[in-house]
């Protein structure tokens, strides 16, 4: 049997935001606040920096646009120049559509797979799933989890702290069963 961390339940989005502020002020870093839907203002409460996903999407979009424009230019100017109804080989205005479509396509892949990368999913074995009650989080429950590899982690201290800030149903995550 090994231990992975502690979870505590809170009543509603409001108390979860207040708890997040206190956990973050206390100096914990390896913690998370779980809710059935995204909560407005939670990033600030947890002290999270802005997501870097935007840069990934930007680079992907630019790659898509350059690839689209380059592909069309290469096909009609270099690989197989062919006179079709007298149009110029390098008919760049006509390349706008496919350039745009590929920019959107690449950005969408960047958004979805970048999101998966930053979220480290798919990941099917996270310790929070050892708790039976935690599954309510996808319906109507609000939980704070503090992981064992947090430098400030000390089990009884963390349990007392979570109790003090209003957490209930406190549970130590173990792989016992």
């Amino acid at each position, binding site marked *: 049997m090994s231990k992975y961390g502690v979870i505590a339940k809170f009543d509603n989005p409001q108390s979860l935001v207040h708890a997040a502020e206190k956990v973050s002020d206390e100096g914990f870093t390896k913690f998370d606040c779980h809710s059935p839907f*995204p909560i407005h203002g939670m990033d600030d409460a947890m002290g999270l920096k802005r997501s870097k996903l935007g840069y990934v999407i930007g680079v992907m979009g630019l790659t898509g646009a350059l690839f689209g424009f380059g592909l069309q230019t290469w096909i009609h100017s270099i690989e197989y120049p062919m006179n079709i109804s007298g149009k110029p080989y390098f008919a760049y205005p006509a390349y706008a559509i496919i350039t745009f479509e590929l920019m*959107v396509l690449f950005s969408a892949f960047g958004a979805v797979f970048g999101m998966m990368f930053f979220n480290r999913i798919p990941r099917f074995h996270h310790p929070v799933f050892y708790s039976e009650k935690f599954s309510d989080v996808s319906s109507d429950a609000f939980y704070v989890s503090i992981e064992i590899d947090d430098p400030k982690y000390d089990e009884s201290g963390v349990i007392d702290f979570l109790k003090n800030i209003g957490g209930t149903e406190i549970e130590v995550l173990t792989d016992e069963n």
Partner: protein
Amino acid sequence: MSIKSKALIRAEKLLPGNQDFTSITEDIAGVPEQKKTPIQWWLLFGFSLSLLSIFVGSVGFLIWEGTGIWGINNPVFWGWAIINFVWWVGIGHAGTLISAILHLFRQNWRNAINRFAETMTLFAVICALVFPGIHVGRIWVAYWFLPLPNQMGMWPNMRSPLIWDFFAVFTYFTVSLLFWYTGLIPDLATLRDRAKGLKKKVYGFFALGWRGGNRQWQHYELAYLVLAGISTPLVLSVHSVVSSDFATSVIPGWHTTIFPPYFVAGAIYSGFGMVMTLSIIARKVYNLGHIITVEHLDKMAQIMLLTGCMVGYAYSMEFFVAWYSGNPYESFAFVNRALGPYWWGYWAMIFCNVVVPQFFWFEKYRRHIPFLFITSILVNIGMWFERFVIVVITLHRDFMPGAWAMYNPTMWDVAIYLGTFGLFFTGFLLFLRFLPMVSIAEAKLVLPESDPHHGDSHE
């Protein structure tokens, strides 16, 4: 009472009754979790499967025999296949409008219908993609659409709007699929947490191990916002590019710059009609009248009124320009639409797309569900006739009277069109049976309790 405060009171009523987070989960997730499938579902599914078998049979015969089984002739080389393609793509557009554009404008009422509409988009675009796929005749070389190196050293002509169209619709399908799946991830986690046995494994696999932590929501929300942001210009580009298939040709009646905005407005108009039809059926069959409320139907009717008027404006502007240009061929093309041998197609279009939506000026009609159901179907009939007017009536009489001909569809045209309904509804019914038809996570955001400042005193 001022209009604004009336609108605010309406917004409060989007989720009537004493609902909370738990009841929303129970109501929405309860549908795919039903032990016993409702008998109506089986009836509709059986009907859809029989239409699907017509689709498989008639497309099979088309591939075996060739496009000669259709009614296309010289000069009407584009018949029902192109009409149906444009019609289905157009229907798909409302889904993206609801999920992307209304999300950017923070129209929270869309949270009750966006999943629904996105799924409609996916299956509508699949139905649409069938037609360009099969109308090429030699379907086994359809991969020539793609810019692939081959032994002939040939490449697609990137200056042709038909290739732009291929890229646009393909991108549109892929991005719609990604958007739809991204929205589903938290809901799949809900179903995973409530299911047992094999179902838990399957839902769990697709939920990717989602655990609802804010460190996940943070990236998730940004990804969702960006997808909405890039889908918005994408959806506008797709139907604009579809219209370029026509507008870049030199046929009188097609060669007009009004086509892109006119096509986009028409697409949204017909798509909202289809969302309306489907949601009226689904809320009835599954008793979800408290989640997809009359308020939602009212708002959709308002958008149909707006886009219907835009389409009506485009129809009249086309006539004005045909007259004002002084071009006899252009003028003839439009007189022939209204008074030629296919006059009934033109007037069916005017009735369904211009006259019918005028009822939506009145609140009474926007909230009358049987009336909405009938008009939502009329809207799509009208939009089908719009494409019939554009494709068939324009082509059958062009420049030289010696080249004119009448066009008649064959039973195979009809069979393939009906068959795509089988494809659409089979997919849609499977979605209703196994996946949450309303976004569970987003529906909760409409509740005032989801706001962390709910209940704070305003001192």
